[in-house]
């Protein structure tokens, strides 16, 4: 039995010792916005925030998350209003098929939290662990830079 807070809601659930955090989220809590795109922890489609930091949820056991405060893509918007990062992805066409998008957004939010004014190069290097096959990254990078500017401007 572990207790995790996910998107501000507390869950006490039974998990196997080998259950991955992403399996807990997707299969048991039915939060399917977090995706699985590989099995070698490289694609980053499964990035969530654990205690405020971006983590590939396929690299973490659910039991390791006992007591943690977790935010998934479903918990980023507030009161129906998209987070500036989400809004910027839409504004700049930073997504196509949408599959890598949750991981991209979660990863990018963590970047901007750590570095409020990232350069284009810093954005590109930070996203090293997130693979997108659709966009060629062009518009993702634009979206992240734009969101950083919005967030700096204090809209959130």
């Amino acid at each position, binding site marked *: 039995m572990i207790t995790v807070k996910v998107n501000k809601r507390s869950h006490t659930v039974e998990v196997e010792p080998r259950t991955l955090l992403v399996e807990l989220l997707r299969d048991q809590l039915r939060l*399917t916005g977090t995706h699985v795109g590989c099995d070698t922890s490289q694609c980053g489609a499964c990035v969530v925030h654990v205690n405020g930091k971006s983590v590939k949820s396929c690299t973490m056991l659910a039991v390791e998350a006992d007591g943690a405060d977790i935010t998934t893509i479903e918990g980023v918007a507030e009161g129906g209003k*998209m987070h500036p990062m*989400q809004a910027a992805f839409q504004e700049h066409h930073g997504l196509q098929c949408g599959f890598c998008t949750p991981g991209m957004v979660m990863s990018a939010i963590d970047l901007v939290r750590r570095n409020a004014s990232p350069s284009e190069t810093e954005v590109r290097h930070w996203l090293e662990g997130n693979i997108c096959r*659709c966009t060629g990254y062009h518009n993702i990078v634009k979206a992240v830079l734009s969101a950083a500017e919005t967030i700096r401007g204090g809209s959130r």
Partner: protein
Amino acid sequence: MTAGGIGSPVKRREDRRFLLGKGQYTDDIQLPDQTHAYLLRSHHASARIASIDLTAARQAPGVVAILTGEDVAADQLGGLPAGWLIKNKDGSNMVEPPHPALAIGKVRHVGDPVVMVVAETRTQAREAAQLVEIDYEPLQGVAHLPQAVASGAPQVWDEAPGNVCYDWHIGDPTATDAAFARAKHVVKIDLTNNRLIPNPMEPRSAIGHYEDASEHYTLYTTSQNPHLIRLLLGAFTLKVPEHKIRVFAPDVGGGFGSKIYHYAEELLVLWASRRIGRPVKWTSDRNEAFMSDAHGRDHVSHAELALDERGRFLGLRVDTLANMGAYLSTFAPCIPTYLYATLLSGPYAIPAIYVEVKAIFTHTVPVDAYRGAGRPEAAYLLERLVDKAARQLGIDRVEIRRENFIKPEQFPYQTPVALQYDTGNYHATLDLALKSIDYPGYAARKKASASRGKLRGFGISTYIEACGLAPSAVAGVLGARAGLYEAATVRVNPTGNVVVFTGSHSHGQGHETTFAQLVVERLGVPIESVEVVHGDTDRIPFGMGTYGSRSASVGGSAVFKAMEKIIDKGKKIAAHMLEAKLADIEFSDGSFRVAGTDRAKAFGEIAFAAYVPHNYPLETLEPGLEETAFYDPGNFTFPGGCHLVEVEVDPDTGLVAVVDVAIADDVGVIINPMIVDGQAHGGLAQGIGQALWEECLYDDDGQLLTGSYMNYCMPRAADLPMFKVGNHATPCTHNPLGVKGVGEVGAIGVPPAVINAVLDALEPLGVKHIDMPATPEKVWRAIREARP
């Protein structure tokens, strides 16, 4: 331009659900009482299956059923069919070996599925599969084209001697020989086109659900063309009436061709569901995807170009080997023929062309269409050859292209390899791209790179592609076993809002936005009043799906045609209500009016009247306002353009950095420029990936060496620059929208530009040739080997 209509950069309507984590992909769906399947696959390239012992596996916890090829045969399931029949030079049919859903007797590639285990959970299915004991007798495998065609090579199929699937040709050999006989110069090149693994980020997944009471089958699947899958299930593999099958492809996380085909797993989950009476779900792991998703490319070619004394092209001869893999995937036979050889005139006027293509079986994953599909192979060959010709003859590489382009006034242009290009302006896209990259400033940039110890190279590619598959009658003559039209229904609700049901499938392309823009443009309703539905065979009349950049040109034209029928009917209703002659009714900006008067009925009023027909010509017209149209294109569409790349090579490490990319494409009329640019960006990343990093590697025996992201290099954000994307439209002349297609341009145009840039950078070092991908190791070796 209507606000929100054709030409508007409307923000995508599908984004919100994806950004909120509310997309619904196949693996997100959990049906009540669902079981999970795991497929045990061959780890041998070639082996005889001596025996399969399921005793221990059957005892494993949670196991519901274990099925083998014998069960598939016993239940008389059909093999996976090839959708295209290619004829040999002598008129005989290609070799079409069987393709059972689970291997029987022999396995023929790493990843060939052998046993299906169904259990209560995914983990239990996987663990039980580890207890299955298969006694393989390994046989010698063959993976690479040169070895597969050598005498004494291991045979993939007894019925395909020499591993030849077909031996095909196109063009005029006599005229081509004559062209070479009078040529002043002949330029020759040998090229490989590297095998790629498509890698959409969403792995394939399928859920089969058989309902006993109604004898209905529902398949949830990651497909680009659900109706095609239903047709193949009904007619060939599951062999039950089509009306008993629903295929639903919900949100699909990218396809790039790899999700066109009818895969064994789609059949297996439906069949297993029937056998056990519960839904069965299968989701691919990424490493499973590497050995079970159809691969792309994999050609070996020799080509010769004949030129006159001024560098004019006189003739082209091409001899290509194309790897089919171990089985024929759905569209495989048509890729190296009608989507490759027919494109070998490129944007050039070449009076005589002769192409020979041999398709070869090997002990590898089946090869089929991957973004571009045949056209990247054609563009790569031609553009490498033209660059080599420029160098050999001492002609400027921009000028040799400009001199040999088909001129704007030559359209429609009939090539010697079957296609007739309707329109284009290759000079315009060339000039636009050169301006965009600041070509005159290149010499200074090269000097600046040199001062940093880097070798700068400039690469050019001018390309043509064929999209908008395809005129059904033409395709039929060429061996297609299906029609290639598209269908759409436009339903106007009584309150005036509109639902479009399209056979095109959107898995990143943004049809929910662009198809709505067509409605805004033509019917004059606001975009908020339009909904686009796709992906569900129970809701959409029919469809051939999304591939070959056909959605806008064929699917969009079907929507347009259905709207024309809506307008025609609306005019009749309006004529009645306005007590005017039908011929006097005009429709524009969302209102039906009597020409030359201010008497008018809004679109919404006509819709309402159609459903509340109190004042309505009931004796001559049915109530309701819903129309279906099928659009069969009159020709292919021919996007083209110019892609320019500048690279910096580090001579010490061989690392190639792409420092600038400027492209100018002619994709015809643009519905949504934001989406069009995005499509170009994505194609460029995949094209640059092919040129520099991506390669599916097998060892000589057929063992897969690149089975995960640990050893298959995907382009990352830090590997790519911002792209300069420009457009110059010459509208398509034969579809009502004037659109050509944009989905594949990047993947087609850019690979030769990248390699031409690398070779340009390395020219001072004496490097004359390099094959894709130009990895640091390969470039480093080329530099070392070229040094005196």
